[in-house]
């Protein structure tokens, strides 16, 4: 249990360190690097929340540590009140953590089944002879997407999206969409599928379940969603001309307008609001996305490796420290034990002790044979009953 807790804390610290580091770099380099790079960094941070990279460093020290542990384990331990208290505390923390994991899992299950139910109620399969299947097949061929993709129409004015656990399904709003817009929408969703973005989202859910107590995981999940979308746009438009990019941007605006069910606000706002601002930044990125120079690629890769190292170093540091705290505790106890032992030996040497035959069970075989010898030598008195 103690080990498990150490493990989880280490994962949490490693993930948090990489998240903070990646975000700080983004703040100063937002426009320099590609959205794909920012997205990769967020994915790297997520992987540190889930995978124990610090064990790589541990393996290197394994042999050395094994020897130390063997030495420590060869000494017997004494249970003390302080340790009992610590164990009770660890147990309590573990139970709280487990309860959180349970509640978060139930919550996600509830949300998913609600969505699934709503989708089933609102969606109909796109008829096989519909033109949209032809466009999808052509795109799948061009993009080399071999997986079978399902297409459904939804009666609600939703944004087109990709969903599905085993088989990806593209959900489209039921109103008529022009062919060129349809192509761009499907391309966008196919890129999500090709890049396994839904799996990234699932990994994000898993991390949120395991690290529910860490506010940074909520922040990271938001960041992942944002960069996932921007990086997908980038992939769609990278080889497009300026005019085609404008069409893509307009398609997003058109889709949003058609889906907009909100009545016009009576209070006209002259400044850009948060949602509008985000959308504006996204549109600028669509127009300006370009292949980056070699020097930027090298800087990006170096920084990426630095992030990885930050994660591994911080995690190893935490993991080793937590371990050495428990090792130190053991050492203290052992020292105390040795101390007691010494005092007893002193006591034994100054005084002749006496034993009863019924005391045999209190000693190990070796000790008992020693005592028997001492009885023979009259160093120890054997008491009759």
């Amino acid at each position, binding site marked *: 249990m103690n080990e498990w807790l150490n493990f989880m804390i280490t994962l949490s610290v490693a993930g948090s360190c990489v998240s903070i580091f990646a975000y700080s770099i983004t703040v100063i380099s937002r426009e320099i690097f590609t959205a794909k790079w920012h997205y990769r960094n967020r994915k790297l941070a997520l992987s540190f929340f889930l995978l124990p990279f610090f064990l790589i460093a541990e393996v290197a020290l394994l042999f050395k540590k094994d020897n130390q542990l063997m030495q420590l384990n060869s000494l017997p331990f004494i249970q003390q009140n302080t340790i009992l208290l610590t164990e009770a505390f660890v147990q309590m923390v573990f139970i709280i953590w487990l309860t959180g994991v349970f509640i978060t899992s139930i919550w996600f299950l509830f949300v998913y089944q609600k969505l699934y139910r709503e989708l089933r*109620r609102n969606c109909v399969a796109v008829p096989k002879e519909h033109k949209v299947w032809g466009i999808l097949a052509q795109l799948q061929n061009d993009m080399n997407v071999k997986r079978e993709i399902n297409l459904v129409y939804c009666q609600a004015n939703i944004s087109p999206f990709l969903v599905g656990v085993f088989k990806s399904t593209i959900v489209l709003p039921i109103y008529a969409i022009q062919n060129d817009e349809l192509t761009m929408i499907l391309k966008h969703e196919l890129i999500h599928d090709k890049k396994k973005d839904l799996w990234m*989202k699932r990994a994000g859910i898993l991390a949120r379940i395991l690290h529910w107590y860490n506010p940074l995981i909520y922040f990271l999940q938001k960041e992942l969603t944002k960069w996932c979308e921007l990086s997908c746009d980038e992939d769609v438009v990278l080889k497009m001309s300026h005019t085609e990019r404008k069409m893509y941007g307009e398609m997003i605006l058109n889709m949003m307008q058609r889906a907009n069910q909100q009545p*016009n606000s009576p209070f006209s706002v002259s400044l850009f609001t948060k949602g509008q601002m985000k959308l504006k930044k996204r549109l600028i990125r669509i127009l300006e996305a370009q292949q980056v120079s070699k020097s930027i690629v090298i800087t990006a890769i170096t920084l990426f490796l630095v992030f990885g190292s930050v994660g591994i170093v911080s995690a190893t540091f935490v993991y080793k420290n937590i371990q050495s705290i428990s090792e130190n505790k053991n050492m203290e106890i052992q020292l105390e034990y040795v101390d007691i032992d010494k005092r007893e030996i002193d006591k034994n040497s100054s005084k002749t002790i006496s034993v009863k035959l019924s005391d045999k069970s209190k000693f190990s075989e070796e000790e008992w044979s020693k005592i028997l010898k001492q009885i023979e030598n009259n160093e120890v008195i054997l008491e009759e009953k």
Partner: protein
Amino acid sequence: MPKFQSLTDTEMEVMQIIWKLNRSVQSSELLTIFSEKGWKGQTIATFLSRLVDKGLLSVTKGKGRANIYNPRLSFKEYKKWEAQSLLDTMYQGSVKTFLATLYDEKVTTEELDELKKWFSDK
């Protein structure tokens, strides 16, 4: 208006008959229509009261003891209500963790017009 609750297959069947008739009905009428199903008066009454609870029918007392049921929504309105409930779910936030969308922001029509104008000059 109560919160949207989906209809079971049988409830939908009953509602479709009522929508087709497009007027107020009594349970005795429905009993005749569904006679081949072998339903009892109590069964029909249960379905009707459930439909009242779900907000699809309103009930008034007619002559004698019989209840008169009126449709509160047309089929089209019902479908719109159903779709709205999906949109409400989608905008709750947590759902986004299960999908990859084209956009996830809510922006008002006016703001969109403004953005379109700005974007066309780019």
